[in-house]
């Protein structure tokens, strides 16, 4: 398991994926509070003649910006990088090379998931603290509790997303198929939101909850259902991905 994860890590280093991800995380960590600070000034300077009333920026704007970036750019980049992890190894037949060496197929999938999760969680934490640091400098009244609570929500959300990429990647035979499956599941989850009774259990709502907590304050009680169901669904899709890969035929 550790040996398989070591290979994943080495691959990320050698193919420069690691450095790219780190750079992106750090870029958004630093730019979010700075953008929040200078944006209103910027709007003022370009709107000569018209008076636009821009409220002074607060720490909330910094973290709203930060979580927007996590949920859009970083989400997209992580999915793009992780989605091929199993499917492309099947396509290139390196998967069969490893499993014919007697490596347990389920362990192989689990090692990919664990590596991706650990990488994402550690980078999210690092970039959160960088963002927090700059935010405190620019907005001395920055509050830790709501922003960190939102980060925890994000970690739950991204755990679900990674387990879904593992499942998609295990089901698809190449990166395109895997991506298609992932998008399909994601669209279905968003459609399911039209049923109000299902809404509290739908992991996709975690991302909007993050910004709500920043704006209106932390409310763990209302999030319990979503968090628990997201974690259960994460485990379920990871296990499905492992079992399906174990069962399927490889080239």
């Amino acid at each position, binding site marked *: 398991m550790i*040996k398989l994860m070591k290979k994943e890590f080495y691959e990320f280093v050698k193919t420069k994926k690691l450095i790219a991800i780190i750079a992106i995380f750090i870029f958004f960590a630093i730019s979010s509070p700075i953008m929040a600070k200078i944006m209103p000034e910027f709007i003022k300077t370009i709107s000569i003649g018209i008076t636009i009333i821009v409220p002074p920026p607060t720490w909330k704007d910094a973290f709203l910006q930060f979580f927007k970036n996590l949920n859009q750019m970083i989400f997209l980049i992580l999915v793009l990088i992780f989605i091929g992890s199993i499917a492309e190894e099947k396509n290139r*037949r*390196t998967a069969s*090379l490893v499993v*014919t*060496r007697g490596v347990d197929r389920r362990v192989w999938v689990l090692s990919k998931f664990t590596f991706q999760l650990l990488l994402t969680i550690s980078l999210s934490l690092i970039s959160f603290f960088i963002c927090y640091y700059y935010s405190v400098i620019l907005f001395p009244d920055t509050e830790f509790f709501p922003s960190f609570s939102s980060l925890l929500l994000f970690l739950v959300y991204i755990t679900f997303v990674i387990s879904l990429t593992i499942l998609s990647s295990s089901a698809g035979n190449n990166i395109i198929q895997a991506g298609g499956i992932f998008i399909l599941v994601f669209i279905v989850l968003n459609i399911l939101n039209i049923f109000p009774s299902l809404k509290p259990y739908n992991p996709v709502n975690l991302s909007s909850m993050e910004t709500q907590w920043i704006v209106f304050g932390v409310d763990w009680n209302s999030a319990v259902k979503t968090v628990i169901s997201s974690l259960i669904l994460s485990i379920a899709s990871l296990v499905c991905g492992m079992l399906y890969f174990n069962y399927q*035929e*490889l080239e």
Partner: protein
Amino acid sequence: MTVIKTEGLSKYFGKKKALEDLNLEVPEGIIFGYLGPNGAGKTTTIRLLLNLARPTSGTAYVLGEDIRNGRSYLKKVGFLPDVPNFYNFFTAREFLSFIADISGIDNPEKKIGKILELIGLKNEKGRIGGYSRGMRQRLGLAQALLPDPELLILDEPTSSLDPQGRKEILDLICSFKGKKTVFFSTHILSDVERICDRIGILKEGRLLIEDNIEDIKKRYTRHRILIEVDDTEKLIEKVNGLSQIKSIERRNNNGLVLEVSDILPVQIDIPKIIVEENLILKKWEILEPSLEDIFLEVTNK
């Protein structure tokens, strides 16, 4: 001990019967050549034996283990795929360390060095991504050999090698005789003739023949003689009267290939005719059946 034993092993892809009712036994320590034209089902058989694909019906026992029940035998098997692909970001040495890691080999450095030398990749420092097909095939063999397996399953191991490399690799495979069991598929009949103890010929998913090379040759031996004389017409005229002649075929300008039912009397009678008719004998050769003749005969039926 029987290293590979298949019982009614079959694999269908939808309606397509890639492999049908294969019954095969490969005893320990031999080199088994698995032959067949394109699409015969060789790779399919290998995928089944390695548990990469599941049989539609029937089963196989590899190193005593039923392939349907477990995968632990894979640790004792080395596999070279038909189109070897590796992680391109590794160098050969790094890749072999990774294989050693997941195969549970301790302190593999010395072993890796030895194998790289054996396989002719010792001086390759670059990434695998830049390797030629032949180099990949060599590396594929290296990773198959690294865990010192009891059984080697090689899918067309020499298909992209140059003549020199082919000889080296065949000599290497040959050196395993008696120590490891080798099951390899190929189209290259001269390779098979050179190193195999036993062969199976597959066509359209069915095993047509399986036996020792010697026995197959005996079974398919047709007695043929190549004769070259100055006046072939005369010889044909005279030879036609002999009862043992089954067919006469012209070859080149003044050559004849005679197929005979019994070679001994003919070897006395024809020289007599040549002497009597004052013909000039330029060439006299008893033709051995080559594996290629047998392969073509068996697969064209």
